Structure formats: structure tokens, C-alpha cells
């Protein structure tokens, strides 16, 4: 028996996992429309590489990764691109996000799939391949996996199969039914990172998954560790502490201490990518809660959640829907939002399952939250500072170490929405930081500009002095009128004005001269657009002309 190193705090809410594990994984039917948001992952969104009207094949790249912290997205099925526009997205803000809308043709024609012999491939190439195939953490944070894989000579590879949030059972079912494939995925991650030891942490409320994984891990040297059922053991930092006794330093990476952690569903997609050549275009989603037929489904990314829900038949008294678990999930305000790579579970809520919480009372400083906090923070202090917008203090008391797991909220006898206050304070602080950086940049540039102007002035003065000395020397030779230099300055200003006027005229002439190309047989709306633009240009040059005229007349009066 491997010794465990319990983390501080934690809670044990009612599990509600069994309803959705009564039946095996089913495959959700192909929807008529797929909405693939380009922000499927944390980091910068992918940029579209297809155009409206394009025919795409299943698994074809439709959005390419932008920068390092980004990942690609692929067509989940074959069909036609009908729109690239902002669509409702399953984000807590309820704001729409840029998405590619596909109309499926029902033929499920694949792109050419290339398997890889990973054992004889450079890990750097594999990492690049994972980025191109859209592999991201499927535990919920959707951080691009190729970034996390960038380490070698690891001591321990931790596979996170704890699945600690109530209701969710997709990882459980994945391990029960596809343990062998999961283990193949683990081998790939182990190869890339050169991990000496592999620990698979599974909460002890999933005996079937533990048994299946143990059977599949025979002769691999991977160790399945049953960990006590205690939320949030599925949080990466807490699981690493639990299994290895090491704490990931605040703001640091686990690789600094020779550890890395991947979700079990993520390594499964690594297996699909390498051994089947399939990009990440589907995932397991638990449909549960107040439903007649709760079950786990294999769902194409982009499937509208409203379509999906029909499979599990929500009961009539359903009050709402939640994406993710009840502790950290996101409310779904609009059921037209699509499944994304982060969608592990959809819960139908009801009064019976989620009784309304008692009225919030003032904080009585009972410190139960501090006893429950797995990050060993003092939530009551953080609440006080967040509530009074005392963000500097909140930072000193390490608000950014808060993982928003909700344990404090769960135990609070005053039922204060603590996590809401932390989210508010964090997003305000991040926004302040952004503003401050912008202000610093502007200040720097403004100060440099003043410095530059001063320098130019001095240079000019030096030049003038030199010239004046020269002139004086000349003047000594030939006597000259006293008003000449003033007239010279006037001349210079007039010359400049004339030059500007000439430039305007030239621009006008150029515009008139340029014959637009490819304008024969234009559709009516394009022609209308061009006309509109021409009109605007004409107006602009007209006003410019007027303005110059006015300036001239002003000068005339002044003179």
C-alpha cells in the first residue's frame, strides 16, 4: 500500500454519481448543425483556415493554433461551412464567441488519417503534432497539452482520474470501458516526458474503474492508487500532494519538481491521435441530474446542448442546466450553446436536487472555511478584503492561490457567496493590472516623446546658431535688409501649405485616375458598397478642400 499525503481541508458532498453509470457509454447521434467555437482551450483562440461555403471532411483542420498557448480545432464531421460568426458560447458571461458553423452532410467522410509510430519519433515533433491535433486538458481547464508535455526526465507522471466533483461520471465510464486504450495513451505521455514512475489516482468510490485500470496496467509498471473520496482531490495540485507529498510552488509548474499531471480523458485522446490519427473532435459527456435517462454519451464537439439533452429527457420540473459539476460548473443560460472540449457534464437542476440555500448572513468569523480550504488560505479574510474592494490586501493574503473549488462556500454557515467575491476580486485585479500596464506604456512613450522633442529642439537650435553665424559672416560682407529673415519664415510656411494642398490635389487626381479592377459583373450589393465608399471619399476630399479654403481665408483676414 502506497503511503498517501492528505491535503488540508476538503469536503464530502453527496456524490449522485450512480444514476449516470447504470448504462454503458452511448454514441450521440449526428446533429444537423455543428457549432465549433474557436476558443475551445485556454490561451489565444484559433484562427479560422476555412471560408464560408467550403466543403470540409471529418477531422479536417478548420482553425489553426495562434501562438504557443493555443490549440487547433477540427471539423467534427463532414459537411459545409455555413457561417464564421459570433455564436452563443458556454461561457459564464453568456457572451457570444467567434465560431465556425458546419452543416453536416451525414456521410461522415474522414480526412486521411495518419497513424504514428511514437516510439521512434522525436518528442518535440509529437508535441507539435498534439497542438495541430487539438489535444487539450479535458478535465475542465482545457489547457493546451503540448505546453504541459514540454519537459523530460520526469520522476512522476500523475494521471488524474479522481473525478471528485459530484454528479460527473464520464472519466469513470471511460476507464471502465476503455481502460486498455487509456493505458496506451499513458504510455505515449510517459514516453514524451521520460517519466520513471506513473501513478494513476482514482477516488475509491469508483471500484469498477479501479479494477479495470488495474487489469489494464498489468505488466506496464503503472500504479493505480485508490485515493479517499474527498473533494477536491481531482484538483491537480491537491492530487500531486496526495500522491507524492510534494507541493507545487505558488505560481510555479509541477515539472520544476519532476512531476506532471494529465487528466485520464486527455491521455485517451493522445492515444486516439497517435494510434488512430484522429484529432480531438469528440468527448464523453455525462448527462445527469433531474433527467429520466441519465447516461454518458460520446458527443461530437459542436453539438448543440439542446439537441443533446433530448437524449436524456429532462423531467418537467427542471429549473435550469449546469455545465460541469455543482461545485465549479457554469450555468447554461441558453441551450443553443454547443458542446466544447471542456464540457464534461450537463446537469439538469431541480428544487429537490438543489434546494435553495438559506439567506446569506454576515460573516461570524467561525473559520470553518479556513478548515475546509485545500489551498490553506483564510477565506474569511479574503472575503472581507474582496467585499471592501481592498485588492492590495487580498493579494497579500494570496487570493491568487485560490483555486475557486468552492469548499469554503459549501461549509459556510452564513451562506455567503464567497467564491463569487473571489471571482469578482480576481477579475477586477487582472483588469487593473492590464490598465496599469497600458498606462505605464503610455507614460513611458509620452516621456520619451517629450525627451525626443527636447532633443530635436536643441539640435535645431544648434543648427540655427551655426547657420546664423554663417549668415552673420556673410552679412558682414554684403549689407542686407533687416526684414529679410521674417519674410523668409513666411515664405517657408506658405511653401509648406502649398505642398499640402498639392498633395491633396495629387491624391484626388490619383484616386480619379485609378481605375478599379475586377469590377465588371459585380453583384448588386458589392456595387452598392463600392458606390458608398466612393461617396465617402468624395465627401472627405470635399471637406478637406473646404477646410484648406477656410484656413486660407483666415490667413487672408489676418494678413
Amino acid at each position, binding site marked *: 500500500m502506497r503511503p498517501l499525503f492528505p*491535503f488540508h481541508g476538503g469536503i464530502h458532498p*453527496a456524490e449522485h454519481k450512480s444514476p449516470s453509470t447504470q448504462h454503458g457509454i452511448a454514441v450521440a447521434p449526428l446533429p444537423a448543425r455543428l457549432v465549433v467555437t474557436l476558443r475551445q482551450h485556454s490561451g489565444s483562440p484559433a484562427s479560422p483556415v476555412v471560408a464560408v461555403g467550403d466543403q470540409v471532411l471529418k477531422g479536417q483542420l478548420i482553425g489553426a493554433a495562434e501562438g504557443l498557448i493555443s490549440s487547433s480545432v477540427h471539423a467534427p464531421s463532414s459537411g459545409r461551412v455555413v457561417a464564421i460568426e459570433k455564436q452563443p458560447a458556454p461561457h459564464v458571461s453568456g457572451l457570444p464567441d467567434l465560431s465556425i458553423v458546419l452543416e453536416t452532410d451525414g456521410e461522415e467522410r474522414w480526412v486521411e488519417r495518419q497513424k504514428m509510430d511514437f516510439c521512434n519519433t522525436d518528442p518535440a515533433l509529437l508535441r507539435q503534432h498534439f497542438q495541430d491535433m487539438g489535444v487539450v486538458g479535458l478535465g475542465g481547464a482545457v489547457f493546451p497539452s503540448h505546453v504541459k508535455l514540454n519537459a523530460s526526465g520526469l520522476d512522476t507522471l500523475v494521471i488524474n482520474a479522481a473525478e471528485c466533483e459530484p454528479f460527473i461520471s464520464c472519466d469513470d465510464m471511460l476507464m471502465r470501458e476503455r481502460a486498455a486504450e487509456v493505458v496506451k495513451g499513458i504510455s505515449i505521455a510517459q514516453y514524451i516526458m521520460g517519466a520513471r514512475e506513473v501513478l494513476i489516482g482514482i477516488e475509491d468510490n469508483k471500484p469498477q474503474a479501479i479494477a479495470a485500470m488495474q487489469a489494464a496496467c498489468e505488466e506496464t509498471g503503472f500504479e493505480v492508487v485508490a485515493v479517499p473520496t474527498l473533494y477536491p482531490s481531482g484538483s491537480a495540485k491537491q492530487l500531486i500532494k496526495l500522491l507524492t507529498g510534494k507541493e507545487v510552488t505558488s505560481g510555479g509548474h509541477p515539472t520544476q519538481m519532476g512531476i506532471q499531471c494529465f487528466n485520464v480523458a486527455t491521455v485517451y485522446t493522445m492515444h486516439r491521435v497517435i494510434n488512430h490519427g484522429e484529432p480531438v473532435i469528440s468527448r464523453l459527456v455525462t448527462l445527469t441530474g433531474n433527467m429520466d435517462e441519465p447516461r454518458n454519451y460520446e458527443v461530437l464537439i459542436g453539438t448543440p446542448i439542446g439537441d443533446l439533452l433530448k437524449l436524456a429527457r429532462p423531467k418537467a420540473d427542471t429549473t435550469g442546466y449546469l455545465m460541469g459539476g455543482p461545485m465549479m460548473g457554469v450555468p447554461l443560460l441558453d441551450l443553443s450553446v454547443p458542446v466544447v472540449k471542456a464540457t464534461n457534464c450537463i446537469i439538469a437542476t431541480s428544487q429537490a436536487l438543489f434546494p435553495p440555500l438559506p*439567506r446569506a*448572513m454576515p460573516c*461570524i468569523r467561525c473559520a470553518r472555511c479556513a478548515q475546509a480550504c*485545500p489551498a490553506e488560505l483564510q477565506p474569511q479574510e479574503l472575503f472581507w478584503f474582496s467585499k471592501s474592494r481592498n485588492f492590495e490586501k487580498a493579494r497579500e*493574503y494570496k487570493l491568487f492561490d485560490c483555486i475557486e473549488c468552492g469548499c469554503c462556500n459549501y461549509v459556510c454557515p452564513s451562506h455567503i*457567496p464567497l467564491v463569487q467575491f473571489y471571482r469578482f476580486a480576481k477579475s477586477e485585479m487582472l483588469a487593473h493590472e492590464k490598465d496599469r500596464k497600458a498606462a505605464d506604456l503610455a507614460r513611458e512613450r509620452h516621456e520619451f516623446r517629450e525627451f525626443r522633442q527636447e532633443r530635436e529642439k536643441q539640435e535645431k537650435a544648434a543648427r540655427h546658431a551655426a547657420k546664423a553665424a554663417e549668415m552673420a559672416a556673410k552679412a558682414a560682407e554684403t549689407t542686407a535688409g533687416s526684414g529679410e529673415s521674417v519674410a523668409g519664415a513666411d515664405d517657408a510656411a506658405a511653401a509648406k501649405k502649398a505642398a499640402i494642398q498639392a498633395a491633396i490635389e495629387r491624391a484626388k487626381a490619383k484616386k480619379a485616375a485609378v481605375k478599379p479592377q475586377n469590377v465588371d459583373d459585380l453583384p448588386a450589393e458589392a456595387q452598392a458598397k463600392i458606390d458608398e465608399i466612393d461617396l465617402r471619399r468624395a465627401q472627405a476630399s470635399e471637406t478637406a478642400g473646404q477646410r484648406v479654403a477656410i484656413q486660407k481665408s483666415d490667413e487672408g483676414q489676418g494678413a
Partner: protein
Amino acid sequence: MSMNSPLVAEQATVNVIMLKVLAALLPAIAVYVFFFGPAILVSILLASVAALLTEAAVLHLRRYPLRVYLLDGSALVTAWLLALSIPPLAPWWLVVVGTVFAILVAKHLYGGLGNNLFNPAMVGFAALMISFPSHMTHWPAPDMLAQSHWSFTQQMDFMFGGEFPAGDRLDAITMATPLDTLKTQLHLDREISEIQSGKIFSILSGKGTEIIALFYLLGGLFLWQQRIISWHIPASFLAAMFGTAGLFYLFDPGHYASPMFHLFAGGTMLGAFFIATDYVTSPTTPMGKLIFGAGIGVSAYVIRVLGGYPDGVAFAVLFLNSAVPLIDAYTQPRVFGHAGKWFKGGKE
């Protein structure tokens, strides 16, 4: 209903906590009645009514929802603790003035539930102690020691009208408390062993009072078992008092009472388990709780032995209450993933 996570929570509420505190006091109150008669129940009732009425009036003025906040039980806890701290036969107005002062000044003028710096019951007690010292020192003798036994109606006549039964004097039923006796007798240059042979003393401390203290201890253990209070404050309080008293006792057993006597005398047990552990006015960090409890234990002993008042728990609690923000700021525990043992709030 807000749909933002987390959507589940324990159903425990503030009033459940407060009710458990009240329940933990009940056995001790029963023993109190056994030794000193039912007058204490009237005191508790008076204090409760006064507290609830004051609370309701202030809540109304501050436009707080009455039902929720009256039922939170915090006013009742204040009332009961105050009633148990003052002499059971105290005149009715003393109880009422103390309670109103506690709720109005110590609690609501500081911002109400969760915002008061000082323990309201102890502020009420201190106000009475300073304003009406003679009333606050008339403790009745335990039933078995009293010269005369008043009936319940006679006790009520005294409490509400200040009338003695014909031919009786106040002295007939009151008696100096063990701590009081100790203090006055020591001034007369008598030895501890000599003083403690007096009839009010018993094995641990005073006859009757030691049993009540024992039941406060049991009630406190119940609260600990229910995870309402943590062990830190009571343990460090009692240990510090035991340690300080022990030092003095070792130094000169003739003039300093034994540590066991101090643990079971006066307000030690009530203070350690029910008063010092008040969430709002005690530190929240484990280290802070230990410092806070130890501070009370030492100061209570010092005030008891060297100060002018017979008992020092109330003043020690108030004294340490004022240090709570400081203690909290300097005892912030280490955060997950950070180096060091703990950090000083605002530094590092």
C-alpha cells in the same frame, strides 16, 4: 436563485450553531438550579426577553429583516452568558441594564452580528461591575450553606422589589465567593491551607460552584465534539492559567492557591469554553487562537491574584479581544505552495 456555482452547501446555519451553544449550557444551568435555587432561571428569562426586545428594536431601526436575525440566536447566547455571569439574586433592573448595554452598545453600535470587536456579554458584565460593584458582589451562598432558606416567592420579592422576608437580612443568604474569600483573607496574612479549611471550600474549589464548573467543562467538550469550537482556545486558556498558577504555587504554596483551585473557581470554565471561544471576538488562525487563549489565561490569573477584582476572566477576555486583529494579522498560516511557516499579514 443564483445559478453561479457552487450550488450545493451544508444546510448548517448560524442559528443551529447558536442553538447548540445554548444546549451545551443547559446541564450546567440545571446543576446551578440544584445548588442555588430557581432564581437563576428568572434571571436568564429576563435577560433573554431584554436582549430580544433590544435586538428587535435596533434591527428595525437598521432595517434588517427581523425574523431571520432574531432567530439567529446570537442575542440569546449573549443574554444567557451575561445572566450566568452575574449573581442570581441580582435585582431585575441590573440584569436588564446589563443586557441592553451588551446588545445595544457592544453589539449593534459596532455594526451588529459579526462586526463587534468585544464580547457583548463581557462588555455588559464589565459595565455592571464598574457601575454597580456592590450589587455585583452579593453572591448567594449555596443552599446547603445558607443560614436561611428563602422560598421562590421570597426570592422574587427580593429580585423585583428589593424586599427581604421579615426579620431577615441580606447577609443571611449571601456569602463571599471562594475567590473573594481567598483575596480578603490573604490580606489578613492568613495561610492558604488555613483559609481553605473554611466551610465554603471543597476538594477542587468552592462547594457547589466546582460542580457547575465541571458541567461547563462537559458542555464545552460537547461543543468540541460537535466541531462548534476548536480545542485551541480552551486548551491554551486552561493550560496557561494552570501553568501560571502552578508557578506561583510552587514558589509559595502558603500564599498562592493550587492551580486546580483556579481552574474550577470563578468564571474559568465558563470563560474558557463559552466566552473566549466566541467566533466574532476571537482570532481565526490556529496559532492566533493559542496565543489568544494563553493571553486570557495569564491575564485572568494576574488580575485575580494581583488586581482589585476577585475574578479576572471578564477583563482578561476584553483585554485580549482588543488584540484580536493584531494577533490575526501576525499569525497568518502558510499558504499551500508557499515557503515558510506562517506569514505576517501585510508583510513578506
